[in-house]
């Protein structure tokens, strides 16, 4: 008899994700894909770069997420004069038992959930302050390295317009983000619903549905989801296909300057595992990879100037890759 109780209760992850999505949906109208991708990134332990024009609810989403999770939340408004110390903290002179000595004043980065609002308005120096925090989940000030709280989840937003006076995120910084999620403009029906919900005498109050422990358990469970060899090879082929020197697609060879890094593959597989769990499955399917390919790879594909001139986007390139990459069955 095969049926046995799994040692890891994967259904809890599904329930957690569903309750998170349900709770967020009370305030965030429509945007199901946005919510799903955000929950996937949270469950996978990755950071998210939200890109959208002002007023689409990016900040509201992150703030709402902070409300639904019983975790510390901090918001950093990135501006050109923001300094790294404003983020990671600094040593300041204080009075302790009559003695004046330096002690570390933690910055807003020390929170489970960090909203880096309009991240592209800060200088590269300040943006770089996030590098160590996002990848190593530690902060080094002076000679001391301090661990960040776990889970640590950065949601950054950026505005694709009003680019004057902004500092585009460097490739290394972009690669730190698990997903880059594009926030679409709501549909007409969603707009009506937004108007109804937010212009009345009361706004929905969100309740907490998960704590840090539940998130960490979900992250560990997600990593246990099995993936078949041929599905894994498919993921690798997808990532390889983003490279102009390896792809058979003319569009990739013509428009792509640099393809996704190995971190892109890791993201693809991990996000696929989380999505499988959220879909109530215990294995990664091709459709999981296809579903997460856009947010996982779009910020890891760097296009030529010619692509911009021809109106070619990374999403279009990824769509072509998905269309032309074979889902070969296992050969043995």
């Amino acid at each position, binding site marked *: 008899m*095969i*049926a*046995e*109780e*799994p*040692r*890891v209760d*994967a259904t809890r992850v599904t329930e957690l994700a569903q309750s998170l999505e349900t709770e967020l949906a009370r305030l965030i109208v429509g945007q199901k894909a946005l919510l799903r991708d955000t929950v996937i990134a949270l469950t996978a332990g990755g950071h998210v770069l939200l890109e959208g024009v002002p007023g689409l609810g990016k900040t509201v989403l992150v703030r709402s997420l902070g409300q639904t999770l019983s975790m510390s939340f901090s918001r950093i408004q990135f501006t050109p004069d923001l300094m790294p110390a404003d983020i990671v903290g600094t040593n300041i002179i204080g009075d302790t038992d009559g003695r004046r000595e330096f002690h570390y004043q933690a910055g807003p980065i020390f929170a489970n959930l960090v909203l880096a609002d309009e991240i592209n308005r800060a200088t590269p120096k300040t943006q770089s302050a996030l590098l160590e925090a996002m990848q190593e989940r530690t902060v080094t000030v002076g000679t001391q390295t301090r661990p960040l709280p776990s889970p640590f989840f950065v949601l950054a937003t950026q505005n694709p317009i009003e680019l004057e006076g902004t500092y585009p995120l460097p490739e290394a910084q972009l690669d730190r983000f698990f997903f880059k999620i594009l926030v679409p403009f709501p549909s007409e029906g969603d707009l009506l619903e937004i108007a109804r919900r937010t212009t009345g005498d009361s706004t929905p109050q969100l309740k907490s549905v998960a704590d840090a422990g539940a998130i960490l358990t979900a992250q560990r*469970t997600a990593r*246990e*989801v*099995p*993936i*078949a*060899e*041929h*599905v894994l090879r498919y993921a690798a082929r997808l990532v390889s296909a983003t490279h102009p020197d390896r792809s058979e697609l003319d569009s990739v060879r013509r428009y792509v300057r640099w393809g996704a890094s190995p971190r892109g593959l890791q993201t693809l597989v991990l996000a696929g595992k989380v999505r499988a769990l959220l879909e109530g*499955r*215990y*294995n*990664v*399917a*091709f*459709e999981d990879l296809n579903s997460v390919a856009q947010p996982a790879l779009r910020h890891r594909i760097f296009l030529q100037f010619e692509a911009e001139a021809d109106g070619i986007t990374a999403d279009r390139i990824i769509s072509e890759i998905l269309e032309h990459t074979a*889902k070969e*069955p*296992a*050969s*043995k």
Partner: protein
Amino acid sequence: MSSLEAIVRELRKAARRALGARYAAHALVGAVAWVAAVMILVRLVPFERRAELAVLGIPVALAIAAAAWLIRRPSAALLMAMADIRLGLKERLSTAWERRAESGPLDDAQRHDAVQHAARASLPAAFPVRVNRGEATLVAILAIFALALALLPNPMDQVLAQRQADRVSQARAAKAVADAKKKIADSGKPSPKDAQIQKILQDAQAKIHEADSPRKALESITPAEQQLQKLADPGTPALQSSAQNLANALSGTAAGRSAAQAISTNPAKGAQSVRDLASQLHSLSPKDREELAKALAKASQQAQNSQMRDSLSKASSSLQSGDAASAAQALNDVASQLDSLQEQENTDQAVAAAINGLEAARQGLAAQADRDANGQGGQANAGASPSAGASGNGNGNGTGTGTGTGNGNGSGTGNGTGTGGTGGTGGTGGTGSNGSGTGSGSGAASTERIYVPGQPVPGQSENDPTPLGPGQDVPLSPYTQVIEAYQQAALDATDQSLIPGSERDLVREYFSQLGEPRAAK
């Protein structure tokens, strides 16, 4: 057995069915394509066994497809992966099968999930037995194409009919030669050169049979005829003439009358009768002896064979001198020469029969070669077909040998009639060649003179070119004699080189047309 293995077993069964149907369709496409290809091929290349060749492709295609079907056994992992894709199981089965021996935290749950979903799905539906529309269309197109090619007139049919006619013609020619062999063997007149004649005919028959075409077969006939002609003894006519003169001379004597009749009947009997006469010389009356001596002397004077002349002269002189023993000895010598004549005649007849057979073969082959050259190769075949024979209009190539005998004219062959194949009217008989005979002009029946190369015309001497004096008429030669001499010379000339049989027949036809007015007279 785990549920996963049961799933694999069920999938494998379904896959075998689906693959079987697919390979059967492939085999059908292959078979029909083969037939169509054969139909195209037989329009480009003359091929006789086209039906067998076309049909051969069907079992071959089926066998290849069956072998491929038996050899190809998709792996369990492949079956699972394909079932995942086709049944929308989202890689559940393939993952479960791949990790069937793993014991990770979620592996058991994953396998359980996979089995549950498989139980809800119809696994055979992953490998449905269905006809590929493209293949079905291809089969239909190829079948129509092949059928059209089979029904439309094929230009190669004429070539094949010509080949068939060629083969029939060669077979008939070979049979004509074989008939000649049999006739010689059954003649009851053995000659010392029978074995050589049989060997020559055997070789000619084999060459005719194995030749690529009637034209090639014709090339083997002339050398055979030349070989046969070499076997004939050129001295036979002179000896025959001498024997006939002896018979004529003896017929006027009382003692030699029976010997004369025997010699006229055939030389062998004549020899025995002469020996009997030699043994009875001592009992003859002086008058009979004298009469016999005169007859022998006359025969000696007319004899063209020197040995015969010497023996007859010696016998005559011995009788006149009363030496019966010497005369008897001389007559015994004459008897021996008559025996020799009998052997020579037997050989000549055998050679003539052999040449007749070869000529009959030549006629058929030459006619077919002409038809081939004119692109009418199929006609002979049509004439030889059973239906044509049933109507009574078949062209049978009968062979026959007419043997004319006459007093003093030896034997000749030609213008005989024979019967052709069943239902056919009798064909033209073999033309006689080398028929030879010399006569003294005293024959009772057939006295037609036949020109023999190298032999003087009877009654004339080859060494008698007497110059014409003033007022003398030019000596006239018989028309038939001149025509036949020319014909033989022309045919001999054509024999000297590899002149096609059809051309040789033109020469023959020309002379036969010249001979027609004579025959009418």
